[in-house]
């Protein structure tokens, strides 16, 4: 009975995610597209929860749902041009090229899915019993170098942002 | 020190939390207005000589006086109306009154439902007031 319920919940969120992802590209109002994108992020987070990756789901909500979606919505609202978004989108005129790119992307993703065994992985709680503990353990032992490199990259980005925001005239 | 002002402000509001409140429960509790409040007019009819100075002083032509002669050929008041719709309650009429018959009172509930009620018949008002005082005396 629990399996049926979780299967149903998976189906609901999978459909929600795919449907809102479809609406992102088909919606006529570009702000609606951005809002549906946020909904897609939330749906993906729910799917992560169903795969026992709760930490990843929370990060997905915090980073994508909380920050990235806001940035996109905000950017779209500030740069809004009147009229139909599909007309102003240059890519929608080349249907053939779009179809080829989409097909190639789909084929690549399908290939990855079908060549990875087993393709539905759930998190194996080994070291500490919680996903958070596992992730932090891995990050500070096995993957400490990539972790630190990412931290340095973020620091550089932050310094760059501050310099950009400060402007040239003020620094002299 | 940074933040001193914030603490001080919190202290003041914190003290106010327990201080006595200044709210008046109006319809149940009438406010005690200062004695020189000019919010209503009162005419002491026996003192009035119907000289008409008040009517002349009024900047807005609020006061209308009619007078007649009595048996001693003396001028007496027959009618005194104030159109309070125009009245500013500036008090000039009371200052001008030579016999100190007209004065301002602190009565303030002057709102009426009909425009005509804004015409105050000061003699009627005096009579009503006098009879009320009579009753008060009888009861007391």
């Amino acid at each position, binding site marked *: 009975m629990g399996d049926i319920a979780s299967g149903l919940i998976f189906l609901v969120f999978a459909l929600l995610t795919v449907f809102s992802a479809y609406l992102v590209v088909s919606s006529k109002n570009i*702000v609606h597209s951005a*809002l549906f994108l946020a909904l897609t992020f939330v749906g993906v987070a729910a799917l992560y929860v169903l795969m026992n990756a709760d930490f990843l789901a929370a990060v997905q909500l915090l980073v994508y749902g*909380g920050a990235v979606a*806001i940035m996109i*919505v905000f950017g779209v609202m500030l740069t809004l041009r009147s009229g139909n978004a599909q007309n102003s989108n240059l890519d929608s005129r080349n249907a053939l090229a779009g179809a080829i790119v989409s097909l190639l992307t789909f084929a690549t993703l399908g290939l990855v899915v079908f060549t990875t065994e087993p393709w539905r992985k759930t998190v194996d709680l080994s070291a500490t019993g919680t996903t958070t503990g596992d992730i932090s353990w891995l990050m500070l032992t096995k993957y400490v170098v990539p972790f630190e490199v990412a931290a340095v990259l973020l620091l550089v980005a932050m310094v760059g942002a501050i310099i950009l925001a400060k402007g040239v005239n003020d620094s002299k | 020190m940074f933040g001193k002002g914030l603490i001080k402000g*919190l202290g*003041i509001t914190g003290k*106010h939390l327990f201080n006595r*409140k*200044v709210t008046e429960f109006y319809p149940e509790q009438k406010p005690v207005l200062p004695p020189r409040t000019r919010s209503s007019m009162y005419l002491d009819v026996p003192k009035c000589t119907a000289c008409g100075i008040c009517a002349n002083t009024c900047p807005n032509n609020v006061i209308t006086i009619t007078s007649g002669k009595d048996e001693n050929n003396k001028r007496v008041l027959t009618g005194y109306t104030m159109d309070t719709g125009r009245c500013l309650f500036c008090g000039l009429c009371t200052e001008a009154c030579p016999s100190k018959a007209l004065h301002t009172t602190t009565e303030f509930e002057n709102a009426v439902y009909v425009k005509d009620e804004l015409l105050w018949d000061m003699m009627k008002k005096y009579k009503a007031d006098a009879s009320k005082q009579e009753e008060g005396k009888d009861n007391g």
Partner: protein
Amino acid sequence: MPQFGSDIFLLIANWIRGLFGANTYAADVVMDIVKFIMIYVVLVLAVMVFVMLERKVCAWMQLRVGPNRLGPRGWGQIIGDMIKLMGKEDFRPDNVDKWPWALAPMFFLGITIMVFAVLPFGRGMVPVDLDLGIFYILAISALSVLPVVTAGWASNNKYSLLGGMRSVAQMISYEIPLVFSLLGVVMITQTFKTSAIVEAQQHVWFVLLQPIGFVVYVIAAMAEINRAPFDLIEAESEFGCGYFTEYSGLRFGLFYLAEYANLFLISAVAATVFLGGWQGPFLPGWLWFAIKVLFMVFLIMWFRWTFPRFRVDQLMHFGWKVLLPLSLANIVLTGVGIYVYQLIFPGIGG
């Protein structure tokens, strides 16, 4: 051994579970539904109390008596307000973006209610005791910017849009010190679990170990839920009512409810993380929790009715130049403190 006073809710829960006998799956489902309904009931009741408390506290601080007509000493006013709000016309302006406009208040309230699932209301009274507790709270409440900005944009009103844009700037800026201020406590307890954080405060509350964290948390959380003196996004004197200018009736009521639910939320998190949650002598746990939450709510109301509103640039300066360095310094201090503690008492923690 359950004491009657402190574990009354646990006894009720066990009784409901007992009704289903061996069928634990059905019992779980029913218990989840009961928990959801209870969260909603507690939330609505608490919001009613808070709204009334806000009006009374505000009045007292201004030497007034506040609402004094309905009910004993005016405390029945909230019932009248609610009926008034429900009786109002749900008016939709012509040129609003229909669906986002209609859905924004619902999402705003829904997101807030979701967070209540992990709060420990008493001993063993966590609706869903997630391993991610605190992190879940932060992740979900990060979403609440989106409905605000959507409401502002969909209202098709320049003041609403300004309010929405300010909300983005403000809520994203203050989210960072908010997260960092809670991190100190997580470093000490080494867990995100709210129940474990409360357990860890049996002997000493974390407000004593993390005073800087507590101060930063209270300030950042007040900014995060847009309460005065950080109510820039609904600054009446500057642009009407901010993002909910165009809302009326029950939709406005949802925003109103969500606003006070957020107040409840940040007070409850502060009580859980810094003030020892349900830990306390004599009284039952859930009563201690309620007292601590009420204390936090009163504190925040006190701030609101004392301090004037920030200016936008002051807000940004304060957030990025004062709170963020403070919270970072707090993390470094906490790390050093934990290291020194482990040197002195080897074998504890780690």
